[in-house]
């Protein structure tokens, strides 16, 4: 059962990584990075590491995406 879950999450994270690198839109790329981060937090939970899972979910997924979006907004603003 866990093997099936891990494989599904693995395929999802590979798709997310593909979109993060090859997407034309930066917004899609940033959201895909957040998705990969969130999936990796579930993987940490499967590896019996709840502390790391909490850190990854709050920092890697939420705060990093927020900072990326702030930068993107600033760049668009400068562009006019």
């Amino acid at each position: 059962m866990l093997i099936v879950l891990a494989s599904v999450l693995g395929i999802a994270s590979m798709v997310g990584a593909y979109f993060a690198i090859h997407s034309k839109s930066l917004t899609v790329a940033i959201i895909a990075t957040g998705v990969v981060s969130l999936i990796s937090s579930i993987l940490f939970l499967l590896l019996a590491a709840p502390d790391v899972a909490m850190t990854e979910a709050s920092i890697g997924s939420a705060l990093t995406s927020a900072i990326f979006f702030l930068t993107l907004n600033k760049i668009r603003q400068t562009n006019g």
Partner: protein
Amino acid sequence: MEYIIITIGFALTIFGLYGILSQKNMIKIIIGFSLFTTGINIVMVAIGFIRGGTAPILDEAGKEIGKYVDPLPQALVLTSIVIGLGVTALMLAYVMKLYQDKKSLNINDYKDLKW
């Protein structure tokens, strides 16, 4: 299960390096760094995994199973994630400043040290 997860970790690492090398957009390069860090973290936690072990918290529920995973890689990854956020924020601040100078996100436009 741990084989699959360590495969995911290595694959994310390779994806991240490929992204860093192949992309021209600087934000995409930082996204590549972010993927690279995530992959390395997954690999490090997977190395400390013990089959059938629970989280290293020794309360009643943990003592019933009596088999724990290694706490050391988890502690290292914990700090590594926080440092990853600091490094990402620093790189993004550089990108913002560079964009204000040249109005370009393409890495090939920055050739100031090259003549």
